[in-house]
């Protein structure tokens, strides 16, 4: 029965495929696999906007949206109707074609990343040997879309926002990839399925998730920080800082295209959360071996929702960083820590299994972390600001 529930979608697809003539099967199979992704994740986006507004409201001791439907549950639908019926304005001097293509490219790139995400046991769109590589390659297309949007709008604000977004995304792409390299080193594979299967084993009742190793914890934290910056979320939401450049690169967009940017941003966040789950949190595997009766895809979505809640929590807590703080943090702290983490993962690989290995690696992770943060703090000197031009 549990087996049946776990493989429900896989069995359903095979049953559907049995009605399709053999020559059409590859195409039909791809379409049948893609449609759930195109439905489930935008739906999750709708729910997340509601959850986010409710959660942020509660963090600020407000009620959040509560007018449309029960407790404001219909709010995403109201928002959707609003954005679809709004007038679509394109600036007169804008590059119309690029202006039109940018949101489409953003959403397409965000959706492409889901191709390699193992949502459940045997539930992945394509089993690529270089799955993780594909994910990051597709993820960097988002930057292109962002710059297309900023450049084609022919507006100062959108161009500035796009510049900021590019600077930030490229800076944080490096630690994002480096933080995930440790997992690839340990698993010995770039395939997302392989990585999850390595983690879906149990010692007693405890799983072999990579987050339970010292380098895994550090890698996960670094990865999540970099993922927050990659998806332009608070506290790294400089590209769309309302107080400075209004909405950043998508300032000249309205109506449905604006909604597409919003959708793309959230889809990117889900995708990076999904890959973080795959790399560090054991993908679809249950956190304790006896909890295996709950379907694997349910575990994936539970973990995804937990990470989304974390994103919302952080957004409700931290103020926006300054540009120099953002860059310094990426290049002076996260990047060296990611490199050190790779060294620690190597040490872990060559030491004998046991508690000693864990403690040694924990010390190797913790000591540089403390030393580096102390050093960076000491280097900061505060002085009276001198203005070159404003006197």
């Amino acid at each position, binding site marked *: 029965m549990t087996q049946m529930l776990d493989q429900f979608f896989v069995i359903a697809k095979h049953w559907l495929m049995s009605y399709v003539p053999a020559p059409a099967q590859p195409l039909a199979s791809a379409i049948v696999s893609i449609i759930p992704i195109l439905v489930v994740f935008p739906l999750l986006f709708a729910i997340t906007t509601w959850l986010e507004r409710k*959660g942020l409201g*509660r*963090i*600020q*001791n*407000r*009620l959040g949206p509560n007018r449309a439907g029960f407790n404001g549950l219909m709010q995403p639908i109201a928002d959707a109707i609003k954005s679809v019926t709004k007038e679509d304005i394109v600036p007169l001097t804008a590059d119309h074609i690029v202006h039109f293509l940018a949101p489409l490219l953003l959403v397409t790139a965000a959706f492409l990343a889901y191709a390699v995400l193992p949502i459940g046991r045997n539930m992945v769109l394509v089993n690529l040997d270089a799955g993780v590589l594909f994910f990051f390659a597709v993820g960097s297309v988002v930057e292109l879309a962002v710059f297309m949007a900023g450049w084609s709008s022919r507006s100062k604000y959108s161009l500035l926002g796009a510049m900021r977004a590019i600077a930030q995304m490229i800076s944080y792409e490096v630690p994002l990839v480096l933080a995930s390299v440790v997992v690839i080193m340990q698993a010995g594979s770039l395939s997302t399925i392989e990585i999850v299967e390595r983690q879906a084993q149990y010692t007693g009742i405890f799983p072999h998730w990579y987050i339970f190793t010292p380098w895994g914890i550090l890698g996960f934290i670094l990865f999540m920080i970099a993922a927050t910056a990659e998806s332009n979320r608070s506290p790294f939401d400089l590209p769309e800082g309302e107080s400075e450049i209004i909405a950043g690169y998508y300032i000249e967009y309205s109506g449905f295209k604006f909604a597409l940017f919003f959708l793309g941003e959230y889809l990117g966040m889900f995708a990076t959360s999904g890959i973080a789950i795959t790399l560090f949190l054991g993908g679809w595997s249950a956190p304790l071996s006896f909890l295996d009766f709950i379907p694997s895809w349910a575990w994936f979505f539970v973990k995804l929702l937990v990470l989304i809640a974390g994103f919302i*929590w*952080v957004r*409700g*807590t*931290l103020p926006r960083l300054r540009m120099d703080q953002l860059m310094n943090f990426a290049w002076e702290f996260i990047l060296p820590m990611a490199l050190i983490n790779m060294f620690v993962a190597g040490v872990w690989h060559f030491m004998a299994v046991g508690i000693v290995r864990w403690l040694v690696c924990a010390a190797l992770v913790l000591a540089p*972390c*403390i030393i580096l*943060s102390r050093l960076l703090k000491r280097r900061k000197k505060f002085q009276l600001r001198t203005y070159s031009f404003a006197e």
Partner: protein
Amino acid sequence: MVGEGIIKGLAETARNFFGSYLRKERLTTVQYPEERLPQIEAARNFPFLLYDGADSDAGLRCVSCLICEKECPPKCIFIEKSQDKKPDAVGKPQFYPTVFNIDVSVCMSCQICVEVCPFDAIKMDVEYNYPTEDRFAALLFDKHQLAKSNDYYHQIHPTEAAAVDAALTAEREAAAAKAAAAPPSAATPSSVPGNGTAPASDTSATAAPEPEPVGGEKR
């Protein structure tokens, strides 16, 4: 330790998040159209005309001296002075406004009209809710829409209204005593120049609202 402040901040927001579910007093939001907070006594929005007694036409305190019309910065008051005189609340013949309009869409709620009125005839209301589909005629309030009783004034601004009433009775008693004390020397002109700038909301009885209506050109 690195990240200590972030953890403290996260704990604080978590306390707010769960606290808002556990303790109702944390949520200060009022669901506006359905429930409303009682207005504080110092609330002021748009001016209204005061009248004594039951009849808004007979008891209107305004003697159409036109000071408020002249003083109004956005010029939202329009008064037409009557040609004849009518007895006021105490029985003295007075001019009265045949037309008294205030355009609340223009009014900026500065309360200057209230402060310059020597007769305590115009006061600030607490009503703020004038939604309408006609932004011209429906927001131009005439004399009858503006007239509100002294009881209503007591209801919305009890302290201030009591002070105004006390000052008014004191003045009337003083005037009555003066009239009783010096009936023989009635020939002397009793035109004390009414200093129209005296704030009416002030409790000091210096304003001495002599029955002589102060013409606008006197200021």
